[in-house]
């Protein structure tokens, strides 16, 4: 292949990928910062023009987000209530410049512990679609992210889409991020919550916390404690000790580990207290 290919059809991209294992370039917002050189090296496969890789479409099962969809498009998309957390995260991914080019699939494949896209997608029970020249498979996001900067993506595979189930998208959701400044900030901690309310009681809850461990995580024990509570009671059901026990934060320049545990519980409470009324979008 040429050093730079920019195919418009997926099969062509997958064939190049299978044969040459090029660097996959989408928005470039993680690849370029990783080098001080004037450009990328080696064979580069640009996936920003591939039909079906960009855009948000309704499916029978919910929503499909093309993996190369930039954050700006996600922020603009008027989704159902469950979409709110993802849209709120979208405007926190860098500044507008990053949101114009940085893609949701790139955010997941880069697998930073502080990736803004991960907590809302975990809370939404997202699945990722991975295609190779041979096959296409789907994985729950939690299985795709195997560690800090590590994923289940196999050589020759390309992430093609993220699928969000319709049920989760109907729920109320919220995303909150804490950082030391107001824009362009790597999170100290961030949370996404999704809550299903039936007959005035919480029937299902999904809580995800990012930047507080090697990978963002759901908090099943804390979620379980919310079942049966009224939405108003929910914040008080967040037990900081249970939250902290579910996380594995580190001390770093941005905060101490202990602080992160505390902050995650506070953010979860606030997100639950500040959930939009059901049905709003």
């Amino acid at each position, binding site marked *: 292949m040429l050093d730079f290919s920019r195919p418009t059809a997926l099969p062509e991209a997958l064939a190049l990928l299978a044969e040459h294992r090029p660097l996959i370039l989408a928005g470039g917002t993680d690849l370029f*910062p990783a080098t001080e050189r*004037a*450009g990328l090296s080696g064979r*580069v496969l640009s996936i920003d023009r591939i039909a079906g890789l960009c855009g948000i479409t309704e499916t029978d099962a919910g929503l499909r987000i093309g993996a190369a969809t930039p954050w700006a498009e996600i922020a603009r998309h008027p989704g159902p209530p469950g979409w709110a957390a993802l849209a709120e995260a979208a405007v926190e991914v860098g500044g*507008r*410049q990053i949101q114009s080019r940085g893609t949701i699939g790139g955010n997941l494949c880069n697998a930073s512990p502080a990736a803004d896209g991960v907590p809302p997608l975990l809370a939404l029970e997202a699945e990722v679609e991975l295609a190779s020249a041979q096959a296409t498979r789907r994985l729950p996001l939690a299985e795709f992210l195997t560690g800090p900067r590590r994923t289940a993506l196999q050589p020759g595979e390309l992430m093609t889409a993220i699928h969000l189930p319709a049920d989760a998208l109907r729920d109320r959701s919220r995303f909150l991020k*804490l950082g030391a400044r107001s*824009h362009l900030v790597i999170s100290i901690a961030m949370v996404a919550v999704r809550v299903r309310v039936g007959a005035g009681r919480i029937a299902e809850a999904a809580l995800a916390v990012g930047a507080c461990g090697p990978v963002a995580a759901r908090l099943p024990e804390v979620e379980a404690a919310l079942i049966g509570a009224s939405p108003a009671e929910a914040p008080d059901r967040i037990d900081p000790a249970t939250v902290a026990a579910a996380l594995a934060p580190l001390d770093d320049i941005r905060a101490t580990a202990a*602080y992160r545990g505390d*902050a995650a519980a506070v953010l979860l409470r606030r997100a639950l207290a500040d959930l939009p009324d059901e049905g709003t979008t």
Partner: protein
Amino acid sequence: MKDAAAPSLAFTLNGQPVSFDADPRRRLSDLLRESGASRGTKVGCDAGDCGACTVLVDGAPVCACLTACGQVEGAEVLTVEGLAEAGRLSRLQSAFLRHGAAQCGICTPGMLVAASALLADVPRPSEAQAQAALGGVLCRCTGYRKIIAAVCDAWREDVADPAPEPGAAVGARLRRLDGPDKVTGAERFGADDWPESALLLKAVRSPHPHARFRFGDLAEFASRPGVAVVLTAADVPGRNRFGVIPPFADQPALAESPARFRGEAVALVGFEPGADPDLTGFPISWEALPDLSDPVAAQAEDAPLLHHDRPGNRMIRGYTRRGDARAALADSAFSVEGCFETPFIEHAYIEPEAGSAWLDGDTLVIRACTQAPVMDRDDCALVLGLPPERVRILPTGVGGGFGSKLDLSVQPLLGLAVLKTGRPVRMVYSRRESLQASTKRHPSRITARIGCDAEGHVTAMQFHGIFDTGAYASWGPTVANRVPVHASGPYRTPNIEVEAWAVHTNGPVAGAFRGFGVPQAAIAQELLYDRLADAAGLDRLEFRLRNAFRDGDTTGSGQVLAATGIHDCLSALREPWTKALADAARANAADGGAALRGVGVASCWYGCGNTALPNPSTIRVGLTAAGELVLHQGATDIGQGANTVITQICADALGLPVSDFRRIGPDTARTPDAGKTSASRQTYVTGRAAAAAGAALRREVLRLANAGDGARLRLEDGALIVEDGAVRRIELAALPEDARGYALSAEESYDPPTQPLDADGQGVPYAVYGYGAQMVELEVDPALGKVRLLNIVAAHDLGRAINPLLAEGQIEGGIAQGIGLAMMEEYRPGRTENLHDYLIPTIGDVPPVRSILIEKPDPEGPFGARGLGEHVLIPTAPAILNAIRHASGAELTRLPALPHRVLAALRRAGK
């Protein structure tokens, strides 16, 4: 990156079809700049952290540094050069000039382009919309408020203000005279121009804070394709030691083993134009040595010495003693004591160090961003073994300096490579190099005690400060000497003893950063003042008013003050203070503890010019035979506005309008020495020289015309018209050319009258001081420790506001840096070497600022003016910390006040 055999790339640039033979994997920013298609597109980080390279691709703002050229094939690209229509500034560009939204101008293209995308969607945006749209572009100069104002006001058709009458330029809110180039992208900064065929220089830098190193086969590396030259310390022809303070000069241009700090340059490689500047495999082996990172441990008897002639790694002690502080503290009704710690702070100008150099006959010409052209010339000459007259420094536009561009960076390396190769060269630091190798604000550890009597009159202060000056001297001596003079704050302190040590470690070189150590000292003093006021049962502002200097008071240095403005500044805060306290009390009562609101105040004073040392400035002004008025303006404008302010002063002294002036320089070959842009000295010191030169030329004109003092001058068709009842016409072409090449000219110097300090720090260290006080309102989130600033009021006595628009810009910009110092900034070598781990305030982090300009004329200043540039940063951080304490009880003693530290302090306070 090579473009050999590169496929053709076509897109639309600013409405015109363009095509390049460019590697599609290359950064779009690199293509735009290297090809010359758009050098208005700036590069500040190559990582998407600063937004300076923002361009629109099909209408969407993107970082050109993160965009592969191949991805814009067929797209419409808009850069700053495409904003003006048919040679006329757009409304947005005019609004930037009208509001003073561009200072140094390096972020301006990115701001303008990002704002243009917003305005295309929302012609009259709200403040919040402007902030959201510009959150991705960092500015280090303006404090953002004027940028927000300009964007929100950009819908309006620009109407030029009437030009001030001759003699009325001083005091006018003039748009900066060098502004148009900053908003069109035409301004040329260090990285923006280079001679054809220039070699590209890259430095090999130490990966360790302290390490021995040995070179391998340099000749082999030098013979690689694309490598033109390899240089090491062995190639330095002159004295391989530079330093801003000659007796302390100790820093090598290229280190000999061992390297003393992480990022120190040890070798230089020149690459042929177009070659990939790849240092991979450079033949060097490193042996890491134990390093000193703690300035207390560095003073231990068995600690290894960084410099053999500085025992205990102690470089210098600054000292001031007056009265008997110990005894007075023992007798004081109240006393408080505290220890305070601040980290390395990075200047984080958006323009990394850059320049180019070449030979012009026998003369080495170095064109680079700098704050100190003549010092650069003299120090480069020493390092390169040349007489100073064979070195010419051509300062470029300076994309932010704040003190760090007083020190040499690229200049001696450029010069060395030119001398060794005979070829033109250029060099641009990467953001990582800039962070590693540039100077920093000194980390401080300060212990202080302050006492007062039963009525709240301050009786005494004891102050001991250790300042980590890093591996080399830089401005460490200045910090050690400035701190003792200023440690009392602008308050009567009859008994005082201050000791400030500058101590070497293997940290980055600490040098000058807006305030030279005074901001760190003010944190200790002003935080203790709040505790002392509480102890004495006094309102915190009243306590300060009670102790504020009055005319005739004596400073800790024994200097009797005149024209002291601090009382006026604090008094101006009385009304907002009272209201803010009431608002806070009401909010806290109503809110039930969800957010804790507080108010804080702090003051500053700051001596303008060098501390008890000469620092003259010289200004030349001339009229050509053709009737052109030329100002040789050698004071580098780093965004603060010297080009405008010095012209305003000279214009009024001469009596001709600002619009008649053409500026030359700075250029060491053409402008007399106006000294360095530091120590808040240009408006005052160079301003005095400009006033004297303008007045001298006026006297000469009046003498020729035999006219009285009140005569009115104007230029008309190569003649000078002098009206004094009668109208006289001086035909300039008819006059003989003077020694400076003019029909008429004048050159005048000014040096502040100071007196040396004795062993107890007694003397007259400065001829002029400026004063200020700031008040901060904020909220503390008691559950997260997160602080939200609500409002800042800043009252500064600048003697005379030569240009109120620019003065406000200084205040807002200094406040933004104070916010960073207080709340988020901490440089850690190896850990924060980029602009996403090293945080500076963004457009959402600076609250509304109300500036109150106090004009208490200084008898020594030009038209009464004092300096302002550094003063404005000093009160912000302590006012914030005092407001946090007022809101929540949290006492922060270690900066920055990151949320986890605030929360821990809250818990210590039992909240």
